[in-house]
């Protein structure tokens, strides 16, 4: 999967390219709108990350040009804006953008959005999820480790199920708050940390293999391997 980043701010462009490559995507970087349009027409691009504030040709114009060309009319576009104004968002979505993020944003949030747009996020919708020695019976909402039942509250189960379905993906605290409790705003981060600690006490503490890992500064990930 190849992602085209159109971003004029040098540091932003560089870290986006590097971060996306390390997350397993191919990434090209264009420093202005014209260059971006050229790359979009010449290379195989699966998704565009577009900054709105570009010198010369601005993001809206780039978006309109992309939509006007047959080859790129359906290309998913995620735009980045520093101005969290309702009109801005409405304008972007009206022009045919698929999603947006307001700067500053968490990098894991960007990756999560990109995966959703590319519909290639390995979200597991099986009835039975197995990670290491853990089994999750999704239908009966039961969890076992090493064959022994682990009793969780409804909230704890929802939290674990979210992490398990996105096995190996780092989920930010705000994503967790939004998905598990429908809290779509930056809330007290201690709440998520406390909820994870509680889940760990029941799920990980009694067992030698730990499944829920903290990625400092990013969020939490569920995997059998510690990873890096």
């Amino acid at each position: 999967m190849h992602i085209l980043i159109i971003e004029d701010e040098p540091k932003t462009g560089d870290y986006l390219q590097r971060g996306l490559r390390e997350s397993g995507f191919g990434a090209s970087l264009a420093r202005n709108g014209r260059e971006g349009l050229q790359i979009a027409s010449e290379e195989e691009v699966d998704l565009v990350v577009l900054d709105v504030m570009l010198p010369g040709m601005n993001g809206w114009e780039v978006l309109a040009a992309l939509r006007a060309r047959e080859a790129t009319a359906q290309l998913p576009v995620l735009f980045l804006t520093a101005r969290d104004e309702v009109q801005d968002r409405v304008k972007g979505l009206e022009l045919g953008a698929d999603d947006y993020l307001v700067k500053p944003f968490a990098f894991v949030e960007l990756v999560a959005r990109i995966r959703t747009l590319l519909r290639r996020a390995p979200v597991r919708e099986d009835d039975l999820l197995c990670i290491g020695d853990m089994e999750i019976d999704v239908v009966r909402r039961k969890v076992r480790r090493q064959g022994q039942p682990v009793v969780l509250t409804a909230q704890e189960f929802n939290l674990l199920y979210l992490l398990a379905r996105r096995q190996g993906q780092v989920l930010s605290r705000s994503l967790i708050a939004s998905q598990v409790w429908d809290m779509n705003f930056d809330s007290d981060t201690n709440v998520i940390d406390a909820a994870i600690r509680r889940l760990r006490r029941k799920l990980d503490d009694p067992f030698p293999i730990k499944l829920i890992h903290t990625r400092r500064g990013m969020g939490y990930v569920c995997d059998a391997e510690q990873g890096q």
Partner: protein
Amino acid sequence: MKGSLTLRVSLAFVLIVALSAAGLGLYLYRAFVGEIERRDDIALLGKLRQVQQLLGSAGAQALLQTRPQYFRDTMSGQENSLVRIEDAHGQVLLDINAPGEKYPLPPAAAAPARTTILAWTSRAGAPGQVAAGTAWVDGLPVRITVARVYADRTAMFARYRRQIVLACSLAAMSAGLLAVLLLAHGLRPLRAIAAHAALVRPGRLDSQLDSAGAPNELRPLIVSLNAMLVRLHDGYTRLSGFSADLAHEFRTPVNNLLGQTQVALAQQRSPDEYEELLASNVEELERLSRMVDSMLFLARARQEDVATVRQPLAIGEEFARMRAFFEGMAEERGVTFDDAASGTVLADAQLLRRALANLLSNAIRHAQPGSVITLAATVRASAAGQETELTVTNKGKPIDAHDLPYLFDRFYRADAARSGEAGSTGLGLAIVSAIMQLHGGRAEVRPGPDTSTFVLVFPAA
């Protein structure tokens, strides 16, 4: 000049005074002229009666023929008195002072009245009046015509008219001048206001306009301007205080970022140490980022630029969701929840949750370990109608009375030592207050002896 108040008012003054002076002058002139004419007419008739009496006395016939000079002497009190006596055949018996004048012929009667007097113009062109009467001279009827020339009187009237016109013009001119002077004086407080307004600068908003000596009509203006200055001063002070606070709040995380990064770069470190540094940096940056988000939210809420979709929300469900969200954190702090609420509240779901989450996170932080946090909803009748109140009560150290008015201010922390606590931006309650304002309601705090109750007041639907 169309916009000049002085010019317009002065012209109006001139017009009013000129019109009233002219009216008065005309009235007085008419009265004067009428009176003079009446007197002259009475004098003319008197003269006629005198002649009639003279002719009616015995021996008048002889006297008329033999001593016309006697008549002349008797009649000619004034040069302009003209008397003509004719017999029944039109034969002139006597013609004093102005022989040959052509008179109109007023009806002659034994007892003439003012109504029979006619106007006449002498051969010399002077205006005059003529009266006529009858008499019997030795048994024969005679006609007496008495006339008078009023050249002096006409000249006097003309002079009088000129004086009136002059007086009117003078009065109008002085009125205009007076109006200009009065307005210049009366508008002096306005010029003082303008001069004061010209001195108003951001840093000098607290100087008030002086209303002493100002006329009553301008006092409301001065009072409103002063109130406006107070509001501007308040807003400006808050805004500049806010910028200072903001810079101060940014200083701590920026200082941490700068300091720990520079220390780390001062010598070679192990990868673990670099990782630790970066993770710590991310935490500080997240704090900054949250602060920026909250600031933007507050700024937009202030401009009412936050989309709110108000819908009826089941209070019980919202409380249950909050309880579930804070389950872990409450458990760690040994706090439990007590909520028993029914009914609905008309609110934006995400904003209501944000407000409740901020209140609950505060309540858990300040609750006594082992205590119960109570969530409740009540409907109260107020002057504005039915208000729905959602309350969050925690047991703990009471809030200091002097902190109460500032609790909902941005960056106000009752506990100064806690300002560095991770996750606390000092904006939580300010956001709660802003959310309630977006709903047309308000946020309140009700301190108890050992409890703190925060209240979200939603107005009637």
